[in-house]
């Protein structure tokens, strides 16, 4: 379980708070969407939840332990992050990228054994990328790259993933691929996930609960169908939107209608 307890954060002393008194809870098996406009602090919140930044005040707790007191290895074994995009400075193959996910499970001079290869291959299979194993990462398409990176995260910690706008740089087809993958991983394997995203329809499709962030504060927090309302969309983005259940897909859709000038 991952908890934020009245967390605030500023990047430098004297600058405004980016995250301002956020409390939330992500329980085992949850699939939480974190929504908010640009600059609302959702990426920073994700960094705080992953422990790569330390709160200015308040605490982040991983399974009841204060995150800032845990070592990176310890955290990494329980929780993996997936960035929006992965740019490599050097050329690695897909399997090498996934095996790097095993870092926190290996001793300093230990090399990956049969178990690590088995876990890595299972992760590739789970993300539908087993056939890409030997391919150089930089030759993959955007959607393939993202699925390989998700495989690396699974090979690292199959319990909990934090994803930062995982579909933002993908075209429509790949967005659907990744959305289906995330939904399946949560549904079939019980992987706990927190996803920050700009894509309201992605969130409506796969997330069971939503946290809405505006100006570093939690605007609303609850089940998707209760939280995703025209009022909240207006409060978040200054946009008039039509929100309804889409008959063919069976989940909620958000149709932006008009931009309101504040």
């Amino acid at each position, binding site marked *: 379980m991952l908890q934020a307890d009245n967390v605030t954060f500023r990047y*430098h002393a004297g600058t405004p708070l980016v995250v301002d008194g956020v409390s939330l809870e992500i329980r085992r098996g949850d699939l939480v969407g974190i929504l908010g406009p640009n600059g609302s602090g959702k990426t920073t919140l994700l*960094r705080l939840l*992953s*422990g*790569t930044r330390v709160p200015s005040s308040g605490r982040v707790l991983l399974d009841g332990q204060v995150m800032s007191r845990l*070592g*990176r*290895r310890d*955290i*990494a*074994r329980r929780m*993996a*992050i997936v*960035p929006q995009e*992965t*740019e*490599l*400075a*050097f*050329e*690695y*193959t897909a399997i*090498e990228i996934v095996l*790097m*996910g095993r*870092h*926190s499970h*290996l001793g*300093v*001079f230990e*090399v*990956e054994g049969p178990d690590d*290869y088995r876990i890595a291959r299972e992760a590739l299979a789970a993300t539908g990328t087993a056939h890409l194993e030997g391919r150089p990462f930089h030759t993959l398409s955007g959607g393939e790259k993202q699925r390989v990176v998700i495989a*690396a995260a699974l090979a*690292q910690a199959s319990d909990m993933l*934090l994803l930062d706008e995982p579909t933002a740089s993908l075209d429509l087809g790949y967005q659907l691929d990744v959305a289906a993958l995330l939904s399946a991983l949560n549904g079939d394997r019980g992987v706990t996930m927190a996803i920050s995203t700009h894509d309201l329809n992605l969130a409506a499709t796969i997330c069971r609960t939503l946290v809405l962030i505006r100006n570093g504060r939690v605007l609303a927090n609850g089940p998707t169908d209760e939280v995703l309302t025209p009022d909240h969309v207006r409060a978040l983005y200054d946009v008039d939107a039509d929100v309804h259940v889409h008959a063919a897909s069976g989940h909620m859709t958000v149709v932006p209608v008009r931009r309101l000038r504040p």
Partner: protein
Amino acid sequence: MNLRRRLLVVIGGFSAMALAVVLWAPTVGSTSIDLTRVFDTGIPWADNVDAQIFFVARLPRVLAGALIGATLAAAGVVLQALMRNPLATPFTLGVSAGAALGAMLAIAFHLDVGTLGVSSVPIASFLGSLAAIAIVYALASSQRRGLSTNILLLAGVTLNSFFSALILFVQYMSDFAESFRTVRWLMGDLDVGSYGPILAATPFIVAAFAVFAVLPRALNLLTMGEDVAAGRGVEVARAQRWAFFSASLATGAAVSLGGPVGFVGIVVPHLVRLMVGSDHRVVLPAATLFGAAFLVLCDLVARTIMAPLELPVGIVTALIGGPFFLWLLVRQS
């Protein structure tokens, strides 16, 4: 092929190559000598001219080349990963410029503080490199957590040009003989004369390699970005600090021994990556061994191509490395 077997094959192959080069290189020169006579213990040392030429006249230079080549290549690998920039070199961060300034000052002011068989120039140049390391680190670490690679790069580039200006000033104020010595030094020269300077540089280099040994997996992950590396379980700030200090210290020691021999630190890492892939657990030992062989061979060319004139090795590495570097740039864009 799994990593263990790849390591065995790669290290085995590259070790054999490096060893062959180091044994063969001293036999080449104005007087040709015979390896079987060199190692023939039946001949007394005083009568064994081949052994004297091998061990006294030529081996120190070859060993210096191997040590410097190995060090600059490995430091290049580490710094490229740290900076997430395949075009970084061991000299990018200003260490060599600091070392050069130290050497220039020692030559120009005729400093005479040699100890333990090491003359004043390498000592001053090593101190210069330490000063540069301290300045760059102070600048790059005063910002937020960890090392900012952007500030590292900017500080290094700035320091390089600032020190270069000081070097030019010192040269301008020097007399003719001093100027010639300083220019010779800046070209990189492996003619160390005896084993003393090599032994003096070795402890620093060995210490740096001990740190290199624990870094490779963290270096792999650092190339994916700091946040991802941290998320995968790397203590990023600590890994960056160790990488920076070990690679810089090794570079400082190597440069104070042989001068700023250019291009080894970028040509060798890239050639090795083309051969063995990018996993730093393989790249680092392979680049170390290949770097040793590469510089010894370059030096062999340097001292035979215009014999009896012996060129500084830096001219040869630059002639090979310059076009290679340009090819890399073109290939990247």
